[in-house]
């Protein structure tokens, strides 16, 4: 399994042609206390850079973009009941959705962990 990062502060774990997407610890820190998460339904087609989920904190509402094109296989239902998982465990149990990749080539433009760390440090 390989983990990639986007400059929109999302992480994506890729295992074969399936992937799990969430937001990074840095992103949850910027948003503050998360109060609402809307994850995509199974079967929804998302395209790279398009809106896939919505996250609301006490400060702001933000879109979560699909880091790659694909078909959603599962949204994290646990976030509906307990959105605070995104704050407490953003890069593990606070995942947003899983999808089937349409084009693995799209992963090439994404960052690895070291590159993302440098990116955050530069902000």
């Amino acid at each position, binding site marked *: 399994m390989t983990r990639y990062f986007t400059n929109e502060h999302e992480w994506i774990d890729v295992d074969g042609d399936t992937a799990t997407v969430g937001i990074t610890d840095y992103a949850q820190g910027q948003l503050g206390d998360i109060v*609402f998460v809307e994850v995509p339904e199974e079967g929804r087609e998302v395209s790279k850079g398009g809106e896939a989920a919505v996250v*609301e904190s*006490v400060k*702001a509402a933000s879109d979560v973009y699909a880091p790659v094109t694909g078909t959603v296989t599962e949204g994290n239902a646990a976030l509906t009941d307990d959105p605070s998982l995104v704050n407490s465990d953003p890069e593990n149990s606070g995942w947003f959705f899983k999808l089937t990749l349409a084009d693995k080539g799209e992963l090439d433009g994404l960052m690895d962990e070291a590159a993302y760390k440098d990116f955050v440090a530069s902000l």
Partner: protein
Amino acid sequence: MNAINQSGWKPEMNTAEGAAPATSTGNRALMLEEALIFEIGTTETTGVDLPETPKGASRLGSLARAKPIGLPGLSEPETVRHYTRLSRQNYAIDLGLFPLGSCTMKHNPRLNERMARLPGFADIHPLQPVDTVQGALGVINELAVWLIELTGMHGVAMSPKAGAHGELCGILCIKAALEARGEGHRKVVLVPESAHGTNPATAAFAGFTVENIPATAEGRVDTEALKARLGPDVAGVMITNPNTCGLFERDLKIISDAVHEAGGYVYCDGANFNAIVGRVRPGDLGVDAMHINLHKTFSTPHGGGGPGSGPVVLSEALAPFGPLPFTARHADGHIQLVEEETVGEDHPHSFGRMTAFHGQMGMFTRALTYILSHGADGLAQVAGDAVLNANYVLRRLEGVLDAPFAKSGHCMHEALFSDDGLPAGFSTLDIAKGLIDEGFHPMTVYFPLVVHGAMLVEPTETESKAALDQFIGALGSIAERAKAGDASLKAAPHYAPRRRLDETLAARKPVLVWKEAPLAAAAE
């Protein structure tokens, strides 16, 4: 001199250590605790003496109530006291400076109230024959003329009830105009980052797809990025001018020309019109539709004090599609109310109706009173004084708080600060809560989103220099306390009827409906 507390007098306070004792009532001297009205009265009592209803067969059938609806029975003094006690816990423009950015909380002149209460305006009904309400229709018509004149536009829809409703009206006009041209396929509305948060919501609600346009480092729309995105799928742009960074969009004419050339329309959010009223006519900048918040720029009360009103001025291109009803003055002075039955050949392209009736009559009367009592020169001075006050706040505080766009030049009617420079552990929220202890309503916080930990201060022209100095002193001292790491600020407010509320819990598990207590349920 109108300086506030010029001598700096302060009451001698007992500073003896130790917590103040709890009272048996929960009241603190004259600051009274107040329960919900359902918790004061009981359903067992009644506060009014109604005659017995005559017995007879009910014709309600299945609609008849099967059980009591559980309204508390309170007497008149109990009811009056309840609401008066609640009002004492409130903060209002009549109590002090209300710096809520992008809300234009200005003084509501009492002359407005006097006019709105004239029986010829206050005691009429929207279904009255038009011949019996010519004076009231005349007020609507005259206000319409003023709004068209002040904005340099072609027509105005008076009925929208507030800003976001006005936005929807404007966007529906754009939609109708596109469909009339056979270009209903244009589905994209461009919204800059510096626009009001309601703009994307409006466009999405009307069935458009929203695309963001970034802001430049100096806090304005990235004109080149916007131009680059224009094309045959773009219905128009929604732009806020002055924008939420408190800056005038200098390129608006260039943007409008480019949008028009690409076949789109320009919606301008007029919520910040107070900064330019009497000085800039949006029609001259190529705007096709703009709502005007009468409750902001034209001083009709809002924020718990009254309903909003959001007339929408329209360009020549969009005016034919405006909603019904509207007023039309004939040569003989008679004012006609143009409705579905009378629309005839004058206005066949109207997209329909936004509201059941004409709009907010009370707000129309107040706004026209404000306009007539200020005159054209007075309105221009309103804008000048509002901008001067905001710049005074910006320059006095830019040394203590980070002002990200201070280098972009003067601000318009509102000063924008960020949380940059606050030590770790201190946030914009702490500053806002600290202001409550100092006796001020906090400014707008965490908006606009383009600035981290934003604090948006709009003093309006209402405030004297003395009032501004007092506010600046308070906000400045709080910022200094944060910078010094004063932990007590993290627990502010200390002196409000309620301490810091758990906003996260309130959003995650909101309690929105009062439920009967178990005790009351058992009594049934």
